């Protein structure tokens, strides 16, 4: 696993790495470039993503506001009618 991703994973899952001091120390001791160390310490996720040749924010929408089934007004109307007729 690449060093930086491995370090981030450890920071995410190690209870001993949840305080500022322990994080800073671990970053200092890690085998990543000094540039990446600085980005981690200053919590610059965007620039870190850039340095890893990816983007921080990618699109995260996964849900439409309404169902496709009632997209057309006509089908909504006929649904209503059939509900009334039942």
């Amino acid at each position, binding site marked *: *696993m*690449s060093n930086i*991703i*491995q370090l*981030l*994973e*450890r*920071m*995410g*899952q190690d209870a001993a*790495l949840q305080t500022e001091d322990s*994080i800073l120390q671990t970053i200092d001791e890690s085998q990543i470039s000094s540039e990446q160390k600085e980005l*981690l310490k200053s*919590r610059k*996720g965007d620039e*870190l*993503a850039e340095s*890893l040749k*990816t*983007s*921080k*924010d*990618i*699109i*995260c*929408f*996964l*849900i*439409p*506001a*309404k169902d*496709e089934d009632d*997209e057309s007004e006509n089908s909504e109307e006929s649904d209503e009618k059939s509900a009334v007729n039942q």
Partner: protein
Amino acid sequence: MAGSLACVGIGMTLGAHICPLARSYIEQADVVFSGVSNGIVELWLQEMHGDVRSLQVYYDEGKSRHVTYREMVDAILAEVRQGKKVVGAFYGHPGVFAQAPHRSIEAARAEGFEAVMVPGISAEDCLIADLGIDPGQFGCQQFEASQFMFYQRRFDPSCYLILWQIGLAGDKSMARFATGKAHRQVLIELLAETYPLDHQVILYEAAVLPIDKVRKQSLALRELADAEIFMHTTLVIPPSEKMRPNPTILEKLAKLETAHRVDDTLIPEN
């Protein structure tokens, strides 16, 4: 070999939330589709599996998300039909405010394939921990922000109200990645029918990278129009009113209690 599908949640924070079962599905898959919100999280998935295909390619500004979601489901199903063990790895919980995972599981089952969902830690779970609120204290309602605007919803100002996808509030086109101040103003007017304009609401953003700072910004409802809002921002509206007792039900229950007491006295003790 028969194909199968597992849609697994990897949680909100890189490294912190993925459960052993989700990780195991990913590691044992033939192919992994990723629906995550951060490029670094995608790199992390690539460390777990050699063939991770991003679902990001299906999004396009100006293209209806209905089409995007259909294409995602098609891409996933095509691999299942080829007899592969397919995993959809989604950030948060794959079943929470997410259409493609539900639809692809339904479609796979309809074609006779095994399909499961493995839950994950959602934005709401993080919000509960970070803001220190309990949905059970006053109750909690949640809606997708645009749906909340398009339809006449009955909501209760004596409970928490959580609005998801606030960054897209009021988008009728289904093809944008953000709406702005004008759309949000319409939402504010809708909310102001129920809440005072100076009611304090919270803009929440969970940590995605372990180095991220959690955003929990309190502001007045009226200030929402000018606030900085992103794709991954969630709006939390704490209750503005006290819970009102329901005298009719209380009375019915009181009658039941009295009836019980009478019954009890009629039963002879042994």
